[in-house]
């Protein structure tokens, strides 16, 4: 079998860590974004703290789901992806909205 199912005793851990991965990823990204908007470094610090918790969840999740072989790639993907994504989304937000801040009178109805 290509997978080894979660053990009965680990059901809760599997659900819980899975939910936390997505939730923490969002909190992490939000804190990161907020640190940029508000300019407060303490939010960035908090973001990293959350990311550390995220790493633990990925670890637990990978362990109880018996990831081995190429399934470990998924763990890696989550760790790197969720680490990098908030930065990328932030940059994307800033870059796409950039022109906005210089043209304050273009209306939404403007067609290109």
């Amino acid at each position, binding site marked *: *079998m290509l997978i080894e199912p979660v053990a009965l005793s680990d059901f809760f851990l599997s659900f819980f860590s899975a939910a936390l991965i997505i939730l923490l990823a969002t909190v992490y990204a939000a804190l990161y974004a907020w640190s940029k908007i508000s300019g407060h470094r303490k939010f960035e610090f908090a973001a990293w703290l959350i990311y550390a918790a995220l790493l633990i969840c990925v670890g637990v999740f990978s362990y109880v789901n018996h990831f081995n072989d190429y399934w470990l790639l998924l763990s890696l993907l989550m760790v790197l992806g969720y680490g990098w994504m908030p930065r990328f989304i932030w940059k994307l937000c800033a870059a796409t909205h950039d*022109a906005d801040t*210089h043209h304050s009178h273009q209306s939404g109805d403007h067609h290109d």
Partner: protein
Amino acid sequence: MTEQSPPRWASETFWKKTAIWVTGGSFVLLVILSFDSMKQISAGGPRVPAYSVINKDISYRFDKAKQRYQPTIGEDAPLFGKTLSEEEAEKLVDHGKKTVQAKNCMNCHTLLGNGAYYAPDLTKAWLDQGWGAKESREQMMVNFLLDPEKNARTYGSNRKMPNLDITPPEAEAIVAFLKWMSSIDTNGFPHNFIALGEEDK
């Protein structure tokens, strides 16, 4: 002020192209995989047996090499005592499948785990120990389908299947369909299911 355009990687055209390529690529892959899957799940293919499998004894056992449960096909065990040709078997299963749809079974039961959750999964219904013994199973199933209210086994839940005006030929066809469905290789779902006749193995 001059129009300040965003960097390339954040530009509209870049993302438009990315969207097109990603969508196209995923779709092409899906189509290729679908061709392969169709080949593998056609009746008579490696994963979904031909309809004439209803002439055989079917069971479900733990496969040590694969580390999961797997349907097994054994000796001759014709359904209702009649050995059917491939065409006859297909016709019977087809009638069963059509009846399952027309009676809207899927809005109470799950089939292959999909459907509603008001009544038990039917994936391995043919193999369920609730039928008591292999010898009486076919007749019990038909009787149940013809009058589920009187033959109800609610296990104390009081939840009874309604009478769906199933005719005797339809009931036999449904049993054939269920028998055939139990032979599909579902990658080990359901796990831990002990089939009728496998209790002591």
